[in-house]
């Protein structure tokens, strides 16, 4: 193993990690506001990717319009899921809600297979084709254009989300709801609205991440399995921490790349889940998560 390989693998791992981080941020937003662990996050990514695929391949729309349509459709699905399913489950045990998201993921997979069949497809190219060459002390590290652009787009979107949540009123309302929904109610925040908004936003980021993942690795009705990696990301980072999702995403992406470089591609998933298990044993609330204190 030489150093240049190491850098190239690290770069590709980090670019996947950036997409994990983006999805993780969407996941954390939903969790912070509504305390729902969304197992279907990978399937929301899949909706985004497939709607983009369906529109771009069939209609003669410019790419940007297809992407926009995909984002809107996925956001709508997210909002509807909140309004029709998760709003009814407020106050149910966390496990029940988690199982409902599992059921939802299965429904989404079925619908996608009915519309687009289970066969793998590839998304139309929409990113610039020139690969990146990153100069290092011992030669130029090669990075495929899709990975590079994926990293850049994910980073920009995550930065935008963070800025929005720091300064915009809606973001403040969401953080207030996350801190204490009863108190948020009593100061006049529209808490159900915040719940819907969090789901819409979570679905939106997932759709964006799904399009990026799809353009790198292709799409299939099994691509929702990436949601499992995202679960690991948010557990490592801490379920309710945006910073945690960022660090966790990059860390897990990098670790997966390292595992597939040193041990072989089949060890990628094993590495992810060993990390998950160790993390839960050592620090169950993740790197930056809030500790729950239980009272009788």
């Amino acid at each position, binding site marked *: 193993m030489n150093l240049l390989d190491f850098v190239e693998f690290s770069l590709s791992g980090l670019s996947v990690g950036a997409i994990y981080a983006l999805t993780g941020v969407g996941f954390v937003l939903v969790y912070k506001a509504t305390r729902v662990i969304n197992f279907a996050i990978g399937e929301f990514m899949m909706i985004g990717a497939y709607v983009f695929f369906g529109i771009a391949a069939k209609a003669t729309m410019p790419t940007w319009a297809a992407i926009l349509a995909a984002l809107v459709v996925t956001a709508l699905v997210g909002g509807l899921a909140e309004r029709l399913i998760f709003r009814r489950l407020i106050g149910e045990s966390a496990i*029940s809600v988690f199982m409902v998201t599992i059921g939802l993921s299965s429904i989404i997979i079925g619908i996608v297979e009915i519309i687009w069949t289970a066969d793998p497809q590839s998304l139309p190219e929409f990113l610039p084709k020139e690969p990146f060459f990153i100069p290092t002390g011992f030669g130029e590290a090669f990075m495929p254009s899709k990975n590079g652009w994926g990293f850049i787009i994910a980073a920009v979107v995550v930065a935008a989300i963070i800025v929005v949540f720091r300064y915009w009123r809606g973001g403040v309302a969401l953080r207030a709801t996350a801190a204490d929904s009863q108190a948020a109610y009593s100061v006049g925040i529209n808490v159900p609205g915040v719940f819907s908004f969090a789901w819409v936003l979570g679905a939106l980021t997932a759709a964006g991440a799904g399009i990026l993942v799809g353009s790198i690795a292709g799409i299939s009705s099994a691509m929702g399995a990436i949601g499992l990696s995202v679960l690991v990301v948010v557990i490592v980072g801490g379920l309710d921490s945006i910073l945690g999702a960022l660090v966790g995403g990059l860390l897990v992406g990098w670790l997966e790349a390292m595992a597939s470089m040193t041990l072989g591609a089949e060890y990628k998933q094993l590495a992810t889940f060993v990390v998950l298990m160790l993390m*839960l044993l050592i620090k169950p609330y993740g790197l930056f998560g809030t500790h729950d204190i239980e009272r*009788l």
Partner: protein
Amino acid sequence: MHIGAAKQSYAADEAIFTTNTQKTWLVALAAALATLPLFAGDYWLLIACLVAINVISAAGLMVLTGYTGQVSLGHAAFMGVGAYAAAWLAAKGAPFWLAIPFAGFVAAAVGAVFGVPSLRVKGLYLALTTIAASFILHFIFFNWASVTGGALGLNVEPASIFGVKLISNSHLYWLAMPLAWASVWCATNLFRTRVGRAFIAIRDRDISAEVLGIELFRYKLISFALASFYAGVAGAVWVYLFRVVTPESFRLIDSIFFVAAIIVGGLGSVRGAIFGAVFMTLVPELLKLGVAMLEPYYPGVVQLLSPVRIIVFGGLIVGFLIFEPLGLNETWRRVRHRFALWPFRT
């Protein structure tokens, strides 16, 4: 609660079946199950075997999730451990009546190991560690080729007793159904013992249970081991039914199937495990039948079977959790009370 069933002794109070009506129905059920091979076709006997296997496994998961409150999304992986253990021992020449308990004990040991995180984490976090366990076990099935046969898996010779090979589904029915019956019987009686009551206390409030002097770690591990024992036995019967096991036989979705089954059946009752396992196994078959009936009118509808099955599976989980969170067991209870109390309203 039955009108006019005043209990006059502790034995009567502790009895599982309190009225003669219940006992009669139980005997009727036993008779129906015993005569099933006489009139059911080969295909439906296969389904019956699958139902029996799923009942064993679901009863195990019910002990762990429904009664101890520890959600496991790795149950099918423990079933896989049992299947591999049975196949491995059978390949060494052991008879099935040794291989099946052996599978149970191996699965119990593995389950206890993966139950260790339950001391540290609970609820959803525990569910996630069991997902991790599921993937780690899948990896082991795939890569420990000297024992598990790698991607090709293991083939098993048919089980044989007194020189008769158990090949046909009606033979295996007589292996699977009594085992299912026994496992339901054991699970029901478990909750009349000290250990079972400790499980229930842990489920209802683990901290309170600990204050009462129940060793959480010990009982959680016992629960994991017991549940995995059931899963292992179910896996062993499964491998004698299909006679081959590969890493793809027991995936995460199969673990989700069992959790879905006990939710649909109704958490916290062994009867719920039976209902859930029967219902969730039969629904895809009914879908298949329905599609076969529609095929002459809508050619090509067969292609929709697999996605529709996935949608129905998800829809059942979502629908039951929203509209009937206590599961089929509650529906059953309501219907029974309606009849028992008629003409009064419940």
